[in-house]
Every structure is written in structure tokens, then in C-alpha cells.
């Protein structure tokens, strides 16, 4: 087990990178505590798998350092780093039994057979593979195979970190939920540092204590699910996390609040002066947009454009001064029609300059 420090990591797949655009991973500075459950979240091609492979040692970074418990591991091989990794597609050794698959990482390291047996049985028990130990791995279903991969990742007791690279991609939806809770449970039982890469916000938010959001090679925010929800530090986090994403509209700052197309919007606090000439935007999540009586304090005139029902909520799309603003109305609450008034909760209304939050 280990605490992981990533310092000034940059990576480019090109031989002579010059501009930022040449880098797949632009600049990563992160500290991960021992025993935490972290998720790397971002769309396909944002650099999250690159980051994962750098940590596991399958890829050497162009610049920067990786410390495990304060020790530089940049030049160490995956074996020396004592990490385990579970891949997107299940990797099983077809000709071996489930038992031998689980024992493989231990036997390769010369662990005595008695210990191997105890450990394999313990892991099989945790991953519900006990009944299949004697079966050939080739005959299993996709989720069974992925459980073996998972088990192989967890079977060694000396691992510093277990990494998951979109491990639920090939799993049927109704089993995804089961495996996800299994993973969470395993993390609580084993207590190893775990890093989970995904582009699925539900997976990231349910698995991790802390989520790292990556966008075009930048780490745009690291925080708890609540922080990501309530205070997105970047407009990308705002619209990538949440369904639907954050409402964003161009604004300017005036009279201690924001101004959108001539309407004053209270943000309930004073913020620092953004860089001159920066593109300013106001962001508020649909959850914090409410319908109010016309004429009440901070109300803004809006027209309801459409309503879509998602079951637990209705997503009401309105037009406010030429901007599309979506509001989330819980089930059972009245959904307004036509001309109405909306209000943004000042606490959760954020101002962004060039995409980054202004505090």
C-alpha cells in the first residue's frame, strides 16, 4: 500500500513535442492518499488511460516524477512497482483453470504453495468464484472472466495500488451494478489504494471517495462527488458531470453580482477580480434553478420551451433572455407552462473566467 505523488507529469506520444497540443497529458500534479479509492473520469481520448499506464509503469512519462511513499519509481518496471491492473477487456489465461489463473501472479513470484492456496481461496470467496475454481477459465461468461481479472489484481497482498481501466465496458448493464458494488465492498475489505478509470460518471461517483476529472490532458478538478457537483472548478466539470449538465451563459460582473443580458443576478458573495479580457460565464446546475412567483426577489423572466419526464424528475427547458436554461423539477411538483419566473440559488451560482472558476 502506498501514498502516490504525481509531480509535474507530462506525456507526449510524439518524439519532439513543442506546444501544449503535442502533449496527451499536459500537466498533472496530484497527491493520492494511502488506501483511498480514486476515479479518473473523462471522455474518451482525454488522457486518462495514458495517466494510468504511466502510474503502472507500462509507459514512461516524457517529464515529471511519480513517487510511491516518497520513493521515485519512474524508472521501475511494473513488477518492481508492485501494482496490479485490471483491463478493459477481461484477460484470462484460457488453458488454465480459474484456480490457476488466480494463483498465477503469486506463483510467478515464487510464493510457497501453501500461502498461494490460502490466498486464492480467500480471493475466490470475495469475488464469488469459489464454485468455479476447478473450471477452465475459457468457458466462463464475460463477467465471470472479468471477476478472474479482478481476482488476479487483488490476490497479491503486497500491491501498492490496484488500477482498473474501464473494467465494466464489456459487462451487461444489469451485472454492472452488481460488480460495481462488489468493487466498492472489496475496497472496504482490502483497503488497498485503488484507481478506477472510466468515462461513466455514475461508475466514478459511486466507486470513488475522490474523483479526478481530466479534460484534454488537463486535470480540471479533483474532489469528492459532492464537491464536483456543488462547486465545479471548470465549466467542463459542470457540463460533463450531472444529467443534464450545468447551465452556462455569458455574463459580466457588476454591482457585486453578475449581469446576464441586462438582468442582475445575485451570487450572494464577493469574488476576486477576474483577469481582464477573459471570457466570463455564469454557471448554475439545473438542480439549483427554481420556479418562483413573478416579481419576487431575484426572479428572472423565462419562457418554458419543453418538458421531458425522466421518471423521478422533469427536465424543464426554458428560455431566459435568449439563453437556454434547464431546471430540474422533482416528481409531484407542479410544472409551469408559458411565461414564468425562475431563480438561481446564489450559493451554487458560479462565475467562470476562460472556463476556470472565479472565487
Amino acid at each position, binding site marked *: 500500500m502506498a501514498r502516490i505523488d504525481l509531480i509535474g507529469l507530462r506525456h507526449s506520444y510524439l518524439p519532439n513535442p513543442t506546444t501544449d497540443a503535442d502533449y496527451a497529458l499536459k500537466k498533472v500534479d496530484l497527491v493520492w492518499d494511502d488506501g483511498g479509492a480514486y476515479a479518473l473520469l473523462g471522455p474518451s481520448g482525454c488522457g486518462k488511460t495514458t495517466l494510468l499506464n504511466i502510474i*503502472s509503469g*507500462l509507459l514512461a512519462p516524457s517529464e515529471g516524477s511519480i513517487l510511491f511513499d516518497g520513493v521515485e519509481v519512474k524508472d521501475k518496471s511494473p513488477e518492481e512497482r508492485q501494482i496490479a491492473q485490471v483491463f*478493459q477487456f477481461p*484477460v484470462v489465461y484460457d488453458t488454465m483453470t480459474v484456480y490457476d489463473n488466480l494463483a*498465477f*501472479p503469486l506463483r510467478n513470484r515464487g510464493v510457497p504453495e501453501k500461502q498461494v492456496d490460502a490466498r486464492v481461496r480467500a480471493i475466490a470467496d470475495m469475488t464469488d468464484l469459489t464454485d468455479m475454481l476447478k473450471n477452465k477459465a475459457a468457458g466462463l461468461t464475460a463477467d465471470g472472466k472479468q471477476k478472474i481479472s479482478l481476482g488476479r489484481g487483488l490476490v497479491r497482498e503486497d500491491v501498492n495500488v490496484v488500477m482498473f481501466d474501464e473494467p465494466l465496458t464489456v459487462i451487461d448493464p444489469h451485472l454492472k451494478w452488481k460488480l460495481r458494488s462488489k468493487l466498492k465492498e472489496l475496497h472496504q475489505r482490502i483497503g488497498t489504494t485503488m484507481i478506477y478509470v472510466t468515462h461513466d460518471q455514475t461508475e466514478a461517483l459511486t466507486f470513488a471517495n475522490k474523483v479526478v476529472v481530466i479534460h484534454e490532458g488537463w486535470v480540471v478538478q479533483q474532489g469528492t462527488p459532492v464537491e464536483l457537483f456543488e462547486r465545479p472548478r471548470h465549466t467542463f466539470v459542470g457540463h460533463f458531470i450531472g444529467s443534464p449538465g450545468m447551465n452556462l451563459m455569458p455574463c459580466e460582473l457588476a454591482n457585486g453580482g453578475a449581469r446576464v443580458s441586462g438582468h442582475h443576478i445575485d451570487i450572494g458573495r464577493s469574488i476576486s477580480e477576474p483577469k481582464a479580457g477573459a471570457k466570463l460565464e455564469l454557471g448554475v446546475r439545473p438542480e439549483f434553478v427554481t420556479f418562483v412567483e413573478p416579481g419576487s426577489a431575484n426572479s428572472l423572466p423565462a419562457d418554458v420551451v419543453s418538458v421531458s419526464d425522466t421518471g423521478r424528475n422533469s427536465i424543464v427547458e426554458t428560455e431566459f433572455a435568449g439563453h437556454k436554461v434547464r431546471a430540474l423539477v422533482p416528481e409531484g411538483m407542479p410544472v409551469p407552462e408559458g411565461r414564468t419566473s425562475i431563480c438561481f440559488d446564489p450559493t451554487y451560482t458560479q462565475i467562470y473566467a476562460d472556463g476556470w472558476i472565479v472565487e
Partner: protein
Amino acid sequence: MSARTTNQKAWFLVAPVVVLVAFNAIIPLMTVVNYSVQETFGDNLFFFEGMKWFEEVLSSDRFHDSLLRQLQFTFIILAIEVPLGVAIALAMPPKGFWSSACLVLMAMPLLIPWNVVGAMWNIFALPDIGLLGKTLNTMGFDYNFTRQPVAAWVTLIAMDVWHWTSLVVLLSYAGLSAIPNDYYQAARIDGASSWAVFRYIQLPKLKRVLTIAVLLRFMDSFNIYTEPFVLTGGGPGNSTTLLSLDLVKIALGQFDLGPAAAMSLIYFLIILLFSWIFYTVMTRGEDN
């Protein structure tokens, strides 16, 4: 209502294939079957002889000897070409310019007509003027494939290995390229040695293509005719007279149609039997 609707028109669609197969396989084969049970005389006179030719062929030393030589040849070249082909495929660069270059080089021997291969090796190995033969003799080896049975065998096997190992290489290379990179990365993380990677990842993933490779090489080498015919003509003596060479001698040299036909059928059944055995053994224990 469960009305039986049998549409007999489908037969018209199958008919062309039936005619084609009849003319290129069934009728010629039946002609052979016909010859194999008859004694042939001039003026197209035929007498039914039953199983006589089969008994004669099966009990003749000449047939036993050629069959033994044939089996020996086939198993030697399989034992060399399959492991060698896999080894070469493993050693080839996985991608980039050099992988294409290797593939083109590997494909070359396969593109050369078989009788040209025989002629090339014949000249190459001639002891007085051939590059190989002359070099060996200059180095002090007494090598003459036209007079020494062992030298003839070595040359014959070298020629076949040169000609056909590429097929195994190409098949194995294709099989290796189909292994996802995740497997290698997982193996590195699991701390697997390169032998374990070969044994538990590469070899199992190559099993299917190797089954094809072994079957193809078995059938082709068991049928081999052109190259040994051009290289040694079955000699010296009868030392490299393989089954096909012997068959042609009986059928066309001596014009013994009955025994030749019986031998053809036995030959065919042997290939069928061995192919079945190989296939069964190599695909044993696979999933449905």
C-alpha cells in the same frame, strides 16, 4: 393450421453445384473405383477382379516401403517446419517497415512454381557446379545427392523447409497479431516470464492457426510430387521414391491401371485418416 409447404424449387438452385461437383470430383473418383476392381486388357476389355488389387497393393513390400518413406518425410518436415515457423513468427518485428519487409521476404518462396523450386534446388545442390554442392565439397564434405541416399534426403528436406516454412510463419504471424496488447500488459503485471507468456498466452492463442497449419502441411507434404520428381526423380535407387512418385510409376510407367487405381484409393484413405486424427487430437477439449 400447419400446412406443409415444401418448395421443391430449391433443388434448381443446388443443381449447378451438384453438376460441378459430379464432374470434377465424383465421376473421376468413381472411374478410379471402377478401375480398381477390374483387370484391364487391350481393346478395352475389362474383367471384374473384386478386391484382388487392394490385397496385392496392401501386401506388397514396394508399397510398404514407399508408405514408410512418405510417413518419414512428412513427420520430419512437420517436426521442423511447425516449431521453426512459430519461432520465426515470434522473432519478427510486430509492426513498422521491417515487419512488412519480413512478410514480403517470407512470402517469396510460396510464390515460386513448384517445379521451379525443384529445378532451383537441383542446380543449387549439384556437387560439381551448384553453389551448395560445390561449397560443401570444397569444405571437405563428401556430398553428392545424386548418389548418396542420405544426401538426397537431406536435400529434399532442406528444400521443403525452405519452400513451406513460410506458410507456417505467415499463419502464426497473423495469429500473433490478433492477440490484444492487454494480454501482454497483464502478463507483465502478473510477473510472467517470457516462457510463461509463450506457454500461457501465445501458444493457446495460436492453437487454431496451428491446427490449420499442421493440416495443410500434412496434406500437402503427403501429396508432394513435383519437387522431389524434379530434384531426385525418386533416386538414388528408390531411396526418395515417395508414395506419389511410386504411384505415377505404376500408373503411367507400367500402365498397371488396376493396381494404380487401388493404390490411389488407399492413398486417399490414408490422408483422410491422418487428417482426421490430427484434427481430432488438436481440437480436443475445445468449447462448443
